[in-house]
C-alpha cells in the first residue's frame, strides 16, 4: 500500500523532511501500525515518533485515531499537539 506521509512543526524538524512517499507491507493497516512501522526504520523516526512522544495524526486531512484505517493513496500526517489561536 502506497501512502503519502507528511510531518509538521517540531516533527518535521526532527525527521528532517516535510513529506515522504512510503510503500508499506500488508500488515500495516492503521495509523498506529504505520507509526510503529516508521519507528522500526530506525533514526530519525524511532526517536521522533517514539511511543511516548505526544503525537497527533490525520488521515486525508481529518483528525485520526490510532485505530483509523488506511487506504492505498491515503495522505497521513503526523504532528505535535496543535498550538494555534
Amino acid at each position, binding site marked *: 500500500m502506497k501512502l503519502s506521509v*507528511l510531518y*509538521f*512543526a*517540531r516533527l518535521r*524538524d526532527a525527521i528532517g523532511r516535510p513529506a515522504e512517499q512510503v510503500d508499506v507491507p500488508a500488515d500495516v493497516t492503521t495509523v498506529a501500525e504505520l507509526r510503529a512501522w516508521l519507528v522500526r526504520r530506525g533514526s530519525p523516526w524511532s526517536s521522533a515518533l517514539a511511543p511516548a512522544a*505526544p503525537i497527533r495524526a*490525520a488521515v486525508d*486531512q*481529518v*483528525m485520526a485515531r490510532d485505530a483509523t484505517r488506511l487506504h492505498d493513496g491515503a495522505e497521513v*500526517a503526523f*504532528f*505535535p*499537539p*496543535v*498550538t*494555534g*489561536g
Partner: protein
Amino acid sequence: MAVRVQREDFDVGAELAALQRDDPRVGAIASFVGLARDCNDGRQVLELTLEHYPGMTERALEDIVAQARARWDILEALIVHRVGTIAPTERIVLVAVTSAHRQHAFDACRFLIDYLKTDAPFWKKERSPEGSHWVEARASDEQARAAWQPPEPRR
C-alpha cells in the same frame, strides 16, 4: 460562514461590518481577537512564526463552525487566522459570530476559539533572545475544550 488563513493582518472593524452585512436580524456580534504577547512561560518573545497544514486547516475550521451552528442560533460566523511571522502586539486570530441575541453569539464565539485551540492544525514557534523553539500545547486548552462536552440541548 467563512474561514480564512492568511499572512496579512486584518481590520477588525471592517470584518465585523462585513459580517453584519446590514442584516436587520442581527442583534448581537460577539468577537474574539487573539494577540501576540511579548512574554510566554517566563521567556521574552521577539517574534512568532505560525505554521499550518494547508487544506486540513480550512476543513478543520469549517467543521468547528458547523458544530457551533448545530448548537446555537448563529446567523454568520467568521474565523480569520494569520500564519507566517508575527511580532508582539500584532493580531493573530479573529473569531466573530452574529446572532439575534447576545447569549448565542457569546457562547458560540467562545466555543469556536476553544475548539480552534485544540482541533485546528496550527503550530507556533517562538523566537526569544536564547533562540527559537516550538511552543508546547497547554493542558488548560484541552480542559477548556472538554468543558463544552456534552453538547447542550438546543433551546
